[in-house]
């Protein structure tokens, strides 16, 4: 293990560690543009130059590996002066159009200028003009004027997405990033180049001109787009409803997790946030022939409780792998443990989709594994017979979480089943065909509006935090069920999601020993189980 001194402080690092990484660990902040821990070293920005004893020239700390006995300095007069000049070089042809640049506020040119630059301009020459703001693919705009040619995006397309759309053409200060002729940047991970672009050269079409970044707040979350469970940040703003048509969630950004998604996320997940603000169910509704009434929670819950009780077990419950572990646990407690409902089925609202060998999984639900570990299973035959039972009038009511049965199953079968039922309850965050025909429609919170956990396909339990308050009257599913259980006279008691998790950690092997707050960064260990593992609930597991 090489031991070296950085700015007078000794540090021991693993062999092969770059100076820039060791310096960061040691509390010395070395600025950089082209370096990215997830990409190969390009060493072209020259911002991370440091002094290494016994070497006459300054060395780039992103390339040089730590050697035993090295003495490194990162903040001498010479280095600070050189940094200033490197910044000056980078700005010679930079258009300085910060007022109209989306990157402003999270721009590394701005940040480093405020920290290391602070000089007066002495550029008297005309700036070179390059191509501004043009589309290079479905998601990304390129502004060559603003580009500092760090080549991060090129390396991303070569090394991570392996799609090779980008290159640097021309030479000298005429160099520019360009997509190769006949290509466009349309790989499944294209949005990441915007994240890694340190300046405003690559901007996200979805985000352009929607909101200045300093109005954004950020909350750690988990992408619900597929069973990978990429760690993300939900970036949102609630204080300026006159921006972005009042949308609260403005964009999603990947959050580093070495074991799950490293620095990346796919476009499908990145742009999957619109449902938080669009087409939402905000009110509690009761549907009668030719009449829809808006109810308050108490009325709705007591009416539904009455119907459930009078059905005397003749109900069906369809749950979704989009629900959190906490929701699923309370569903089990209320419907299986207390009400002894036999027709409790897991139904995926999403068809299987594209999968690759990097991040994207074909299971487009975030919590199939969690549902499985909590004792829910997919069973197509059981689902068919449940519908048949509905149609034959063997069931009185159906409670559906989230999914649009019309798009998941054969629409005419669903229609017949619904017609034969006395009542149906739809608990969902967004409108769909089912919410247009269910007897009761209860608004549920989205995953951005509650906290909870998803278990990804590997069995890793990961917590998502609450970014927003539930929209309108909506509530987290588990809260709706807690209220319902009270009305049913068999109350379950939970004040917050953490309590539910704690209970699961004590009772379910898949969660044993996990701590709700500890799985918020980085997720839990991976635990895989073949079958449902809740001994005390297993006796209810015969479905029809």
């Amino acid at each position, binding site marked *: 293990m090489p031991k070296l001194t950085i700015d007078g402080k000794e540090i021991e690092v693993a062999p092969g560690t770059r100076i820039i990484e060791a310096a960061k660990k040691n509390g010395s902040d070395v600025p950089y543009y082209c370096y990215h821990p997830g990409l190969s070293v390009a*060493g072209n*920005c020259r911002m991370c130059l440091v002094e290494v004893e016994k070497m006459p020239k300054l060395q780039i700390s992103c390339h040089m590996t730590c050697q035993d006995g090295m003495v490194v300095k990162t903040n001498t007069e010479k280095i600070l002066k050189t940094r200033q*000049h490197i910044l000056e*070089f980078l700005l010679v042809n930079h258009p300085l159009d910060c007022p109209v640049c989306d990157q402003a506020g999270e721009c590394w040119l701005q940040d480093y200028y405020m920290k290391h630059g602070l000089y007066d301009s002495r550029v*008297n020459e005309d700036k070179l003009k390059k191509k501004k703001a043009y589309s290079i693919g479905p998601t990304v705009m390129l502004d060559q004027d603003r580009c*500092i*040619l760090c080549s991060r995006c090129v390396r991303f397309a070569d090394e991570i997405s392996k799609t090779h759309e980008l290159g640097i053409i021309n*030479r*000298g*200060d005429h160099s520019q990033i360009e997509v190769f002729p006949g290509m466009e940047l349309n790989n499944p991970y294209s949005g990441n180049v915007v994240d890694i672009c340190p300046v405003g050269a690559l901007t996200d079409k979805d985000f352009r001109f929607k909101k200045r970044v300093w109005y954004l707040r950020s909350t750690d979350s988990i992408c619900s787009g597929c069973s990978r469970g990429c760690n993300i940040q939900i970036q949102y703003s609630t204080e300026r409803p006159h921006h972005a048509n009042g949308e609260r969630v403005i964009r999603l950004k990947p959050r580093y997790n070495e074991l799950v998604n490293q620095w990346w996320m796919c476009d499908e997940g990145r742009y999957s946030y619109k449902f938080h603000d669009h087409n939402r169910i905000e009110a509690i509704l009761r549907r009668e022939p030719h009449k829809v009434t808006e109810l308050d929670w108490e009325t709705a819950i007591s009416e539904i409780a009455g119907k459930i009780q009078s059905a005397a077990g003749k109900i069906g419950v369809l749950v979704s792998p989009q629900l959190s572990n906490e929701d699923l646990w309370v569903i089990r407690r209320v419907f299986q443990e207390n009400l002894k409902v036999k027709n409790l089925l897991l139904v995926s609202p999403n068809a299987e989709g594209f999968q690759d060998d990097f991040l994207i999984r074909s299971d487009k639900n975030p919590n199939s594994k969690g549902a499985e570990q909590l004792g829910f299973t997919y069973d197509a035959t059981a689902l068919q017979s449940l519908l048949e039972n509905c149609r034959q009038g063997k069931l009185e009511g159906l409670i559906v979480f989230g999914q649009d049965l019309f798009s998941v199953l054969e629409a005419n079968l669903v229609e017949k089943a619904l017609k034969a039922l006395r009542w149906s309850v739809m608990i969902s965050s967004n409108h769909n065909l089912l919410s247009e025909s269910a007897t009761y429609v209860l608004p549920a919170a989205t995953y951005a509006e509650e906290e909870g956990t998803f278990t990804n396909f590997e069995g890793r339990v990961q917590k998502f935090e609450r970014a927003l308050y539930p929209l309108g009257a909506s509530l987290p599913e588990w809260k709706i069920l807690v209220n319902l259980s009270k009305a049913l006279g068999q109350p379950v008691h939970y004040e917050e999601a953490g309590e539910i998790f704690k209970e699961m950690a004590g009772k379910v092997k898949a969660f044993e020993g996990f701590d709700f707050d500890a799985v918020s960064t980085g997720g839990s260990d991976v635990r895989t189980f073949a079958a449902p593992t809740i001994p005390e609930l297993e006796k209810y597991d015969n479905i029809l």
Partner: protein
Amino acid sequence: MEKLISKYFVPGKTFWVDEYIAGGGYEAARSVFEKFDAKGLIDEVKKSNLRGLGGAGFPAGMKWSLVPQTTGKPVYLVVNGDEGEPGTFKDKYIFRHAPHLLLEGMMIAAYANNVHKAYIYIRGEYVDEYRTMARALDEAYAKGFLGKKIFGKDFDLEIVLHRGAGAYICGEETGLLESLEGKKGFPRLKPPFPAVVGLFGCPTVINNVETLSYLRFIVERGADWFAKLGSEKNGGLRLFSVSGHVKKPGVYELPLGIPLKEIIYDHAGGIRNDRKLKAVVPGGLSAAILRSDEIEVGMDFDQLRAKGTMAGSAGVMVFDETTCMVSALHVTMRFYAHESCGQCSPCREGTGWVHKILQRIVEGRGRIEDLNNLLDICSFMGGTTICALADGAAMPLRSYPEKFRAEFEDFIRSGKSIVTPKAKELVSHH
């Protein structure tokens, strides 16, 4: 004075294989298999003090001894024939007149380094020279000097001839390797050095055309004899490309360490129209300029370095008293701005910026503070980049204004050249 390589430089003539053999050619390559083992040959070249004559002057034998032979990967030999340094045209003469001398040198180097595949990277603009080399290669294959079991010995050697596409940066050895691999000529980060990780990730020996062309004579006549031809630690002779305001420009083969004054006045015939000498660039465009009172210097790697300039590629460019140094620096910097690969920020932006400032000065719109700005930019361009192009640009950029400060100031104040009032019109506007 004895000529080695340049005795082949007969105007209008190429020494094709039969004539080359008749003059004793390929005997050295043939004999090397008996005379030396690989290590012995490397030691012999070390003893000869043969330096890398492409410009860096790194001892050739030393370079070879750094190549690891036990990696399990093939070792490649790459000949740097890109010859892009302005003021340099010696390799062109070797390609044109003595292609087999280079091939023989390559065989010797291949034997010393256990190389079985070698590449010649030839400057793209050298079209005729490329054809000459191609024909010479065909001849050598036909004679059995190349291919399987050369000279009937248990040693294979394939040589591939590859044309560059015109970028100066592809003469930088790692830029050349990238280009040879089919990529854009971006110099690589070092370490690892090409000796260890070079062409296609394998250990690679890269030598200049001229360096290799001297090997035949070292094998023929011994390292001691060769070392004695030059000065201390600078063995042998060297091809000086002399251009500019001299009576007899051309390639002169002279001992390393010869005084610059002798080259200009004794060999190149003195200054055109017997005008006064103003300045000399001693080692290609990237060498710092020398004033007329600095030409006593001995032309080898160490003496020139001591003078703050460099022997470089031995491209001697002579400027007489009618030369406007401001215009000279302007066209010089236009070259670097045009040829910077664009990888490192200081070089990419610095060379372009400097060129624009000089453009403004020669157009008569200079400001007196531009001079200090130029020198300041220069000091942060050099030494901060992946390759030496920025250092090469910084050498003239610092030395011209420092050594001719008064002329630069006069030009800026008056908006025109004090030397050639028409300099402004001579500058093409790019």
